[in-house]
């Protein structure tokens, strides 16, 4: 409504004036309808005759009085009117003032509102900006951190790798050395073993051959492989035909030969025993 009023001040003024006119008409014409006189209720007029001059004089006086009254009245009325007008002006003014004030207030308020809003917007924006910035900062920082960490990791890893490689190289070098040493030791052991073997194999062979009774009727060309397990001291604890000759008697003679030859002659050096723990005997008569 304020909006409408503010936009059409002239119309408002006309409306107010019209209201005032109507009000005045109401005041002065309140009882403009003819009043019926009720007989009997009023005393009848008493006619009196008065000299005309006098009358005149009276009349004039009366009129003068009347005029004065009327003037007074007019003056009073004017006064009232003035006062009223002043009042109205005042009022209007006040009203205008108020309106203006209201308007101003409103304006101020709107302005304040706007300002506030702007402020808020600004703040919000600033906040968002700040947040965004913070976010970005954080991100950037995190990224930097990550990069740094990655870098460090990479470095650490590279370092570890290097160390590992170095260790592995050292280990393999060591292993190679050990292997070489082991090989040397083994070669020495082998050499010892070989000499023990070359020394003892004929004894073992001889003892087995002395105990092998070749079955008389066996066909020629038979051969039998037997795996013999020994315990220290040379005692045969197991003899198992690994590859049969196909002739049960031949196989049995081989088994018996090995069992009869027990204990087999072994080197006294206990360390040599491992070479004699299991012996394959290939029984293969040469004729």
């Amino acid at each position, binding site marked *: 409504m304020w909006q409408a009023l503010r936009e059409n001040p002239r119309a408002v003024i006309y409306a107010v004036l019209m209201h005032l006119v109507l009000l005045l008409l109401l005041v002065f014409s309140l009882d403009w309808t003819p009043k019926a006189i009720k007989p009997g209720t009023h005393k009848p007029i008493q006619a009196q005759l008065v000299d005309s001059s006098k009358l005149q004089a009276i009349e004039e006086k009366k009129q003068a009085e009347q005029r004065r009254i009327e003037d007074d009245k007019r003056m009073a009325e004017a006064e009232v009117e003035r006062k009223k007008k002043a009042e109205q002006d005042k009022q209007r003014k006040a009203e205008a003032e108020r309106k203006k004030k209201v308007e101003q207030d409103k304006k101020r308020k709107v302005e304040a509102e706007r300002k506030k809003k702007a402020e808020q917007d600004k703040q919000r924006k600033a906040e968002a900006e700040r947040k965004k910035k913070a976010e970005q900062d954080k991100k950037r920082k995190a990224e930097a951190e990550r990069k740094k960490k990655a870098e460090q990791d990479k470095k650490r890893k590279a370092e570890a790798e290097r160390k590992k490689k170095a260790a592995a190289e050292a280990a393999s070098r060591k292993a190679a050395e050990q292997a070489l040493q*082991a090989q040397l030791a*083994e070669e020495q052991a082998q050499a010892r*073993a070989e000499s023990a073997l070359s020394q003892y194999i004929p004894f073992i062979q001889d003892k087995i*051959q002395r105990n*092998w*009774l070749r*079955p008389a*009727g066996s066909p020629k060309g038979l051969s039998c492989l037997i795996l013999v397990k020994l315990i220290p001291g040379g005692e045969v604890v197991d003899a198992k035909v690994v590859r049969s000759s196909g002739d049960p008697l031949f196989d049995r003679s081989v088994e018996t030969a090995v069992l009869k030859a027990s204990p087999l002659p072994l080197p006294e050096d206990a360390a040599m025993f491992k070479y004699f723990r299991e012996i394959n005997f*290939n029984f293969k008569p040469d004729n």
Partner: protein
Amino acid sequence: MSRLVKLLLFVSVLIANPARAALTIEITQGIEGALPIAVVPFGWQGKAAAAPENIAAIITADLNRSGRFEALQDRDLVAHPSTAEQVKFQNWRMVNVDNLVIGQIKETSDGQYSVQFELFDVFRGKRLTGSTFPTGARDLRRVAHHISDLIYETLTGERGAFNTQIAYVTSRGSSKNRTYTLLVADSDGYSPQTILTSKQPLMSPSWSPDARQVAYVSFENKTSEIYIQDVATGSRRKLATFKGINGAPTWSPDGSKLALTLSRDGNPEIYVMNISDGALKRLTTSAAIDTEPVWAPDGKSVVFTSDRGGSAQLYRVSARGGPAQRLTFDGKYNAGADISPDGRKIAMVHGGGGRYRIAVLDLDSGLLRILTDGQLDESPSFSPNGSMIIYATGAGNREVLSAVSVDGRFKQRLSLQAGNVREPVWSPFGK
């Protein structure tokens, strides 16, 4: 693969497995000998103080005679178990015998016995075989021979021939009053039974393939005649009485024919006669002496002695006749053949240097091997399993029965009664 890795692998293999990597020993020689065995005297449960027969001694002699075994002498027996629970293998390992035989004889009723035996593998500590036989007193020796056969077969893989018989001829007395006897005995020479006695020579006994009949030459009618006789019943039948020589009958493997020497056409030749109808088929035609025919085991050929080449040698001719093929070339005298049951060897009398010895010709290799060492060894005859040869040999001024293993390693004189023993023949397994 780098060298290092290879080296590591090599080393680790060696370390992990030194023995396997190292030792394989070749055994190319063994002893060509007899299997050591212990036969413990059998336990005895009966009324008498001792068993009627020494079963263990019979088995021991059988096994020894085969040449394939060497039985521990009684005094070397380290223990006398007669049941399996009593056997401690360690004892027998100490004396190095491969196998152990124990047993017992129980008298189940008057004259009835139960003979039980068990055979063990000493080094494996395992029972190999065993059995129980009920028998009467008369057959105790036979049971012993049967046990010998079971042991022999278990340990050599060949059928034993101890529970078989031999036939032979003896002659006794002075040249003016001589008695000829045809006998059948156990393979060890024991339990001889006379199946024929004659004042005139008896010659050339030959077993039928079922070991129930014997064919022989008898001069009881002053001339040579061929008879076949049932061993168990003694019933006999005259088969050949041709003019001249009727000699050297041998039974064909299927039992339906005899190969023989006849001189009815003027000269000794080899013939085949159908036993059922006497029909003859002449196999040889030569101006020389052809005699001593023997059948190959497949019945398709006959080996005989002939001097058609200037000296006595062995020849082979098809049983359907045809040209003969000379088999022996080694020495001046090879005669009196016997063919091994597998048909791969021929035993003969091999003469040379004034001596006559038993030799065996290996038909696969063509090699002749002299088995005996006598001055006058004659009439070789294979055992039915082919592992031994029985023959007659001069000892002092008489002849005795001897046996030799086919490889020549073991010779033994068989138990003998008085008189000269001639022409021993080993029976087939029989039926």
